[in-house]
């Protein structure tokens, strides 16, 4: 048992080193932060200032618009971006972390260093999770800074969200992003490469689930299928955490909060297991 924990500690340290020095990782995380700031605050603030209603703010009153930009709304803003944009980017992250090693031959090298294949994959998943958590934390800090800046600029009181709301928001965002990152990792392992897994994963998350939900409104069996799909579960979980309704893409009300949480949790456990089982069984060539 101790040797297993020690091996996982070793592989995690190795994986953290190779991920934090990888430009592609930071490009992906940076893309998320840029998108989050744009859709979370920049567009909202611009339409508040100019009075134009934009794609992101259609049909809202000025007061409601400003309320969303205040520190008290941080939990809402944080979770809203995760089911689609954030999830897609974390899936890319997971897929490149798992997939590139097959083409480069680095999995082959790492599997011959001592730690078992299971320890190696677990270490890689732990390191990936660290990046998901760091991404959420960085987003939170940025949101706090930007929203309090807006509050001060607009001469409003800086009111922080209740700690319970904030923890639910952070927890929900982390869980949804983690699920997509794990899905990317599993896809990258199945496809043994980043290109196919990123491509198929994105088409699935951004297109197919949406189409199926549309078809599901007409066909019962398809609707039943959509209710167990990851995107629907993530979107429903986020919806249940919001304090007010939204039309953000990816946020849906197909499932109750509890059912959505269970479904996301099942994916979060099943996806890494798939990756571990596959890696253990395969010949590495």
């Amino acid at each position, binding site marked *: 048992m101790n*040797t297993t924990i*020690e*091996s996982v500690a*070793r*592989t995690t*340290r*190795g994986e953290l*080193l*190779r991920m934090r*020095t*990888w*430009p*592609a990782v930071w490009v992906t995380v940076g893309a998320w932060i840029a998108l989050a700031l744009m859709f979370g605050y920049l567009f909202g603030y611009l339409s508040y200032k100019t009075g134009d209603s934009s794609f992101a703010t259609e049909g809202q009153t000025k007061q409601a618009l400003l309320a969303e930009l205040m520190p008290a709304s941080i939990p809402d803003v944080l979770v809203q971006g995760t089911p689609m944009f954030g999830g897609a980017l974390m899936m890319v992250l997971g897929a490149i972390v798992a997939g590139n090693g097959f083409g*480069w*031959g*680095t*999995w*082959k*090298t*790492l*599997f*011959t*260093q*001592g*730690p*078992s294949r299971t320890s*190696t994959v677990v270490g890689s998943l732990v390191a990936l999770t660290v990046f998901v958590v760091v991404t959420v934390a960085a987003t939170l800090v940025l949101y706090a800074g930007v929203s309090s800046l807006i509050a001060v600029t607009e001469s409003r009181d800086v009111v922080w969200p209740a700690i319970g709301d904030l923890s639910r928001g952070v927890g929900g965002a982390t869980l949804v992003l983690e699920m997509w990152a794990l899905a990317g990792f599993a896809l990258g392992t199945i496809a043994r490469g980043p290109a196919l897994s990123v491509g198929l994963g994105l088409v699935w998350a951004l297109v197919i689930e949406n189409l199926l939900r549309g078809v599901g409104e007409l066909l019962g069996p398809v609707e039943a299928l959509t209710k167990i799909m990851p995107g629907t579960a993530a979107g429903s979980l986020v919806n249940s955490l919001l304090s007010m309704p939204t039309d953000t893409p990816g946020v849906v009300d197909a499932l109750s909060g509890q059912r959505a949480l269970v479904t996301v949790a099942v994916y979060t456990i099943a996806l890494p297991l798939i990756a571990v089982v596959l890696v253990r069984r395969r*010949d*590495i*060539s």
Partner: protein
Amino acid sequence: MNEPMKSDLVVQTRGLTKRYGDRTAVDAVSMTVRRGEVYGFLGPNGAGKTTTLRMLLGLVRPTSGTATVLGRSAGDQQVTERVGSLIEGPGFFPYLSGRDNLLVMARYRGLPTSVVDDALVRVDLGGRGDDRFKGYSLGMKQRLGVAAALMGDPELIVLDEPTNGLDPAGMQDMRALVVSLARGGQTVVLSSHLLAEVQEICDRVGVIDDGRLLRESTVAELRGETSLRVRAVQVDRALAVSMRVAGDDGVHVDGDAVLLDLPATAAPDLTRALVADGIDVLEVSAVERSLEEVFFEMTTTQEVA
């Protein structure tokens, strides 16, 4: 008496076989590698060398047969951490420097950071350690792969075609490095399709072709006894005398020369016999067969059979 003998075997395989569909890549290979030796795994491209080595490292599961490495089943965690390897080209992160790549491996192995610089120096990459791996030449990549295999002084080092992509000077350095590893007590298994290389540095050789281990022995045994070569003005009479000395089956004609299956020590007697018969002798010399000749003899007879 049996116990120390057993632990002296670093690698032992029994009937190791790997099939991919209909194709048998490795066919019932039973090989043994002894502690402290340099074992050469020799065969043409596609003979099954790399697949066999992959099975020794636990990367590929055998279809049947067993592989025991350092007294345990191949691929066992307690084995892999005592084995260093470079298999079918170096696999490293292209965006990391050579040093950082080795640092990742050192963390996996639980080794201190200091081993990284030592390993870089041993393969002559000391000055280029901070350059990115993707900017390395083929030879530098190969040397970094060997450096990774050396870290932590493993008991067994498995090198698949270690001189691939190296220039002549780099090849010579690599061979010297391998020999020095064995002198230091480490066991080295290397595969090669270069006969001269194996002849130069290996203690024992396993010859593999078409998935089958054709022969396993020392280089000297494989090359066999030396033979004697005679050239004379009167070829027919020289042939007759040679047959009298070496027996009918011990003589072969090679162009204008006669080859006798006799050791070098038989040269004086042979020369006396030829001269006594009044033959004008042009040359009597001892000929050593090169590994290359043995090898081609072995692989071509297999094809005919």
